[in-house]
Structures are given as C-alpha cells and as structure tokens.
C-alpha cells in the first residue's frame, strides 16, 4: 500500500512540475492583439509562426494571439464570446456573424455594452488616413450588417460563390459529348453517363447534397426569388398563386425526374457535404458534382490516383429563366469587429486598413517577395518550398484575408495545379462577373433585420428547402406526395405557418420602404 501511495505521489509530483514548466508566461513588450476567428484550428495551425503573420507583426510592432473555436454550427464560438464578454475579456479583434440568432444577439450585446468600434464614426474625418475602410463602410448595400441602433460595427466581408457543376471531361470526350448548355442537354449528358458508365463503377450521374444546392437548378427555371405587391400585400413570386408558380413547379418537376430516373445521387437527402458527393465523384460513381470549386484541391488528387486519365472541367447551363446558378454577395455572413475598450483600436484599424490596401491585398494573395515568390525579368515564380506557402496554394489564399473586407475566394492564383487555368476562367466568367441571380436565402432572408429572424426561427430557408424536398423525394412527412397545383398550394400554405408572410412584410419595410 505504501509503495503504491509513494508511486502515485511521485507521478503526480513529476506531472505537476512538468505542467508548471509548460505554463510559463511569455514576456513581451510589443502590443498583443487577441483575435477571435471562427473556424477550426487546423486552418490556422501554423499561423503563429507563419512568415506573413510575422511580417505584419513586425511592421506594426504587434503580436497576434489567435483564438480558434472549433464548431460545426458556430454556436460554440458565440457561447465562448458571450462568456468572455460577461467577464470583460472581449478579444481585441473578432470575426462576427449577423445571419443567425445567437451571433446576432451576441453582436447586439457587445454594442449595448459599448465594446464595438462604430466604424463609420471612427473613420469620419479620417478619410485620407483610412481610404479603404471609409470606402467600404460608406457603401449603401450593407444594411444587413447594421445593428438595431442603425450603426455599422463591423467591416463586412464580401463573399463570392464559387459554386459550379464539375464534369468528368474525359467522360464527355469519350462519349463524344460537349459541355451541356441547357437543361435538356444537361439531362442527356447525365443519362449518357449513367447508361454508358465509363469507369464501370455504376455511376449515378449528378452527385450533390440536399438543401441549398437545389437552388442552383431551380434558378434556371424560376430566376431570382423576390417579393411583389398584390392587393397591397407583398407576396413571394414562388407563392402557389404567385407570378412564377408555374416555373417553380416546372423546376421542381425537373429535379423530380432526375431523382426518379436515377440521374441524381440517390442518397442526396442524407449525404454529408465535402464527403459523400466528393467520394462519388472521385471514385467514378458520378460524372458530375455540384459543389464549391475550391474543394477541387481535395478531390482532384484522389481522382487522379483512382483514374490517372481523368480530367475535369467546370460548367453551368441555362434554363428557361437563365443561368442555373445563384450568386451570393455582400451580406453573406461575416464581418470583422474591433474592441473599442481595448486601448488598441488605432493600431488595429491601421492594420486592417493596410490589409485592405493594394499592398496588403498583394501580401495576402501572393505572399512576401523573396520568401513566397520571386520576380525575375518580370516573371512571377512561386517558391513552393517556402514556409507558409500552403496558404497561397489554396484558392482561398491567406487565412487573414478572412478578416478584411475583400473577397475571400480566389482571384489571383499561383499556377501550380493543372486545373487552375480552367478554374480561373470559370471563376472570372461566372463568379466574379456573374449575371446569375442572387439566391433567396442570402439575397433576401439574411438581409432582414435579425430581430425578425429571431421571430420566425433561425433558418426560414430550411422550411423552403424542406418543401422542395417533399416533392423531389415524393414523401411528405412519410406520406407519398406528387406534384400538382393542389399539393403545391397546400405545401406553400403550410410554409405560411412558418411565418414566411412575416418575412415578406419585413422585407417590404426594409428593402422597398413599404
């Protein structure tokens, strides 16, 4: 017994000493800036020692202390921020969201407690010192980011959808098909893929996940969602008695046909994003995948490993109402806020201004000259062995781009991947200079004041997706359902019980001033 006790005490003592040593505090005279980023730590696992971060730290005599909070639903991030706020421990720089109830409430609480810098007020009279921030905060399309006191407390991030139909180009070539340009050709291509099954793996045609992603296909038939006035009341164009109800039904019927004819991934309703649909594509069980282009990084190498001759291409087709593609824009979901009580506001604002400037943008998209790349005789050559180069080899570029107002997706890419050229062309043609419609979820619902979203539930768009899912799957809460005018109307009326009409009314007040 004594021996065991002695052993336990020795182990505890040894571990305690080692823990004590590991917790030694670092003394530094530079200004430490705590920075809360939502996202998983893996994204920024090397950020503390990243040359770009060190460059910024040296330039501004600061040291970043990054706080990451892994969270699949982002709730943990704002629970933590709430606790920090209650303790007076608010980070100096933080990425906030305004599209969900908890993050929005958190932002409002921070505003009420005087923790956030009023961006417009801050740069007033300092336009020459903060030209980029001034230009951004004075834009007139940032209403969703305003707090309930009608002030702007964060720098919005512009987000460009990089969604595309990604095709097996080698299959198209093998079957003598060209890239589909309309819904009929698209269906024919899927049918040819399924019938011929070029890799012999039992292909299904189109792989995608349920939910928002169907909006792309429906957009080709219905176009933009919007509300219109009828008898003094705002109605959705997709209303069962609305002006585009027929087109909506046509689009739904198209999806139903794809599903029933085996041209659409049969597990679409339960598939997990970035896993199942990519697995289908990279193992030759789907000829087309509808997803973010920036995950090409993930599936391309595996695809080539499985099928060395495989080639890919990005595409989009047009339906009767236009491109089968919806586009997000400013107002998507995030913004960067600065702690007004930290005493570090001026320095942080200067850093943000720098990162938004041309020089900062170059730094975050290309890296440091001489470290990440060299220019010889005017030719740009990336240094693929440089520390931290991995950030620049992704379409999303350096992680810190996420805290400044610029688009956080590819615009200038280091050409190290064989698919990059096709990527850039599609990105420029359809993502940056898109004529696609703004989708209803980001274009409208998320722009409503968040107090309204709190009234109607956190995710009103989920109700609409559920409604679409009823018809595509042919099952409504376990009961069989077929698409016709009556069931369509019934389903829409059911949606009204989810207060879509409240959204319409509030949208009218906000956007149309009615």
């Amino acid at each position, binding site marked *: 017994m004594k021996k065991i006790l002695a052993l*336990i005490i020795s182990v505890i003592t040894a571990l305690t000493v080692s823990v004590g040593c590991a917790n030694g505090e670092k003394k530094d005279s530079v200004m430490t800036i705590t920075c809360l980023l939502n*996202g*998983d730590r893996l994204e*920024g696992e090397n950020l503390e020692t990243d040359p770009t971060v060190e460059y910024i730290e040296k330039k501004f005599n600061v040291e970043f202390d990054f706080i990451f909070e892994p969270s699949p639903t982002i709730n943990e991030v704002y629970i933590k921020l709430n606790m920090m706020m209650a303790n007076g421990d608010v980070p100096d720089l933080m990425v906030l969201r305004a599209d969900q109830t908890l993050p929005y409430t958190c932002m409002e609480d921070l505003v009420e407690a005087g923790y956030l810098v009023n961006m417009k007020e801050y740069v007033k009279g300092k336009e020459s010192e903060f030209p980029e921030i001034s230009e951004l905060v004075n834009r007139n399309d940032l209403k969703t980011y305003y707090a309930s006191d009608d002030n702007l407390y964060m720098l919005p991030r512009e987000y460009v959808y990089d969604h595309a139909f990604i095709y097996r180009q080698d299959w198209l070539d093998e079957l003598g098909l060209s890239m589909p340009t309309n819904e009929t050709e698209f269906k024919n291509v899927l049918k040819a893929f399924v019938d011929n099954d070029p890799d012999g793996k039992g292909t299904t045609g189109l792989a995608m996940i349920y939910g928002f992603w169907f909006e792309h296909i429906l957009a080709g038939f219905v176009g933009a969602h919007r509300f219109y006035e009828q008898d003094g009341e705002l109605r959705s164009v997709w209303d069962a008695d609305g002006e585009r109800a027929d087109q909506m039904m046509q689009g739904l019927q198209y999806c139903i046909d794809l599903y029933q004819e085996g041209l659409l991934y049969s597990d679409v309703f339960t598939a997990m994003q970035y896993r199942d649909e990519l697995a289908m594509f990279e193992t030759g069980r789907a000829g087309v995948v509808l997803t973010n282009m920036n995950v090409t990084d993930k599936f391309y190498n595996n695809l080539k490993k*499985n099928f060395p001759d495989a080639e890919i291409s990005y595409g989009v087709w047009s339906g009767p109402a236009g491109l089968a593609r919806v586009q997000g824009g400013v107002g998507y979901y995030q913004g960067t806020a600065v702690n007004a009580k930290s005493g570090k506001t001026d320095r942080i604002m200067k850093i943000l201004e720098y990162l938004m400037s041309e020089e900062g943008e170059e730094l975050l998209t290309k890296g440091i000259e001489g470290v990440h790349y060299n220019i010889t005789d005017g030719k740009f050559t990336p240094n693929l062995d440089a520390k931290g180069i991995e950030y620049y080899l992704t379409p999303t570029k350096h992680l810190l781009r996420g805290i400044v107002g610029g688009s956080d997706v590819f615009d200038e890419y280091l050409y190290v991947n064989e698919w990059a050229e096709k990527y850039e062309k599609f990105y420029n043609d359809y993502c940056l200079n898109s004529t696609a419609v703004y989708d209803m979820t980001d274009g409208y619902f998320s722009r409503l004041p968040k107090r309204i979203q709190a009234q109607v539930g956190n995710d009103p768009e989920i109700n609409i997706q559920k409604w679409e899912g009823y018809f595509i799957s042919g099952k409504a809460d376990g009961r069989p359902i077929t698409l016709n005018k009556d069931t369509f109307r019934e389903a829409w009326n059911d949606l009204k019980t989810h207060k879509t009409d409240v959204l319409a009314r509030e949208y009218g007040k906000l956007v149309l001033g009615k």
Partner: protein
Amino acid sequence: MKNRGFTIFNYIFFGVLAFVMVYPFWYAFLSSVVPYSDLMQRTLPIIPTKFDFSAYKEILVNGLLGDAYLTTIKSTFIGLALSLAFTVSGAYVLSIEKLPGAKIISSIIILTMFFSGGLIPMYILLSDLKLINNFWVYVIPSLINTVYMFIIRTSFTDIPLSLREAAEIDGASECRIMLTIYVRLSLPTIMVIGLFYAVDKWNELYTALYFIIDYKLYTLQAALYNLLNANSGTGVGGGAIKTVDEQVKYSAVILTILPIILVYPFLQKYFTKGVLLGSVKE
C-alpha cells in the same frame, strides 16, 4: 424444452445486441485501415483484404494529436489521483455518524447536484481563479463529483462500526482508519469510481472548448472535435480551406478510444465486484 428455447433466444438477442454495439467500433477501425479507394466505395468489406496505415502515419508523424494526448494523459492521471483523494476523504468525513451538522453539510452538497451557476458565472469564477487557459481547469473545478462521493459514502456506512471502534481503541488516527479500514474494504467501489473518473477525464470536451484558448492545452476529445469538424466550411476562410481525409478522422477516433478500451478489461473484475457490493444481505 422451454428453457432451451429461451437460451437460444438469449443467444440470438444478445448476439445481435453485441453486434450492434461492436460494429460501429469495427467500422471505424476498418475505415481507418482500408485503402482510400475501398473506403470511398458504397460498402466496406467486413474483413479487409488490403491494409493501408498511412492515416495513422500521418497523425503520428504530423503530431496532429500529440499535445492533446499529453494533456489528456496528464489531466487523467492528476485528475484521477486528486479526485479520488478528495472524494474519498469527503465521503469518509460524511460517513462519520458523530460528525456535527452532518445532515446539513450533506444537504448543502446535495443542493449542488440539482442547481448549477451556469456557464457565464462559471467562466467568471474560473477567470477570477486564474484558471482560464490554464491546465488546472481540467483538475480543480471537477475535483469532486458529488454523486460519486455519495456512492462511496454509502459504501463506507455499510462497514461495521465495531471495526472503527476497535481501531480507535488501538490508537489509530483518523487517516489510518480511513486508509486501512474504509478504503481497503471499499476498494472495489473506489476502483469503479476511479474508472468513472478516468473515463470522465479522458472524455473531457467542453472544458477545453469553453475555458481553454491555447490549442496546445486542448484535450484529446477537443482535438478530435476540431479534426472531425475540419471540413464543415464554417471557418474564417468561408470554405473548406484545409480538408482532412476521412481515413485520418477514423484513425484519430481509434487512437482516441484505444487507451480507454485497453484499460477497461483490467478493471472489469473490480467493476463486477463494485456493482454487486451490498446487493446481498447475509
């Protein structure tokens, strides 16, 4: 005949039950060792024909779970030892019948089982105690689990009082009485509680997520949570900047549960004894 039918039913029923429980573990293991192309097929073979341990290699070489392993091992060992010491001491004191105000003290302790301060007061308290982003947050706030303490107290009260009186007559100190009589006679119960504590500490997740900032101080579960959510697309980059292969995720799951699964059989005998203790009055 009836008994035979019942026996067959039992075999089938418990066989299916065991399969349902074991299969997820087997599936996770399988997914971690089959080649990527096999994993990405619609179905996995029950017995793999080809093996690929590259995911384990990636985790071990890149040290994806290294710090977390160390933190979890430290918190489990230190936490277990200190928790048992404090819990047993607390249970012993409360089991003494002549303790003045024993009922009031017990009631106050029981109260904490039904009411908690909530997350924010907890954060403020831990901050005042300088425990935020500090390793000791895994140990000190959870030193005593009141339920476990009352289980041990109940075990102590089952020990005949005459043993204690005899020890007192022989001049034994309270500490000696506790260690040589009460702890020794209640060893199965204490071992079971120890196992519970160890599992609790090993599975620590939310303490790390809410009260720790430095990733190097994350526990294994928090690191795993981070890894499993790596592709969620909710990150600061707005997309799947860094994706993690499914094999790596499954391998991480296996590496996370393996130590506790390996320890379990060795404590099984105490577990059975502890559960049976006091169930028969002779």
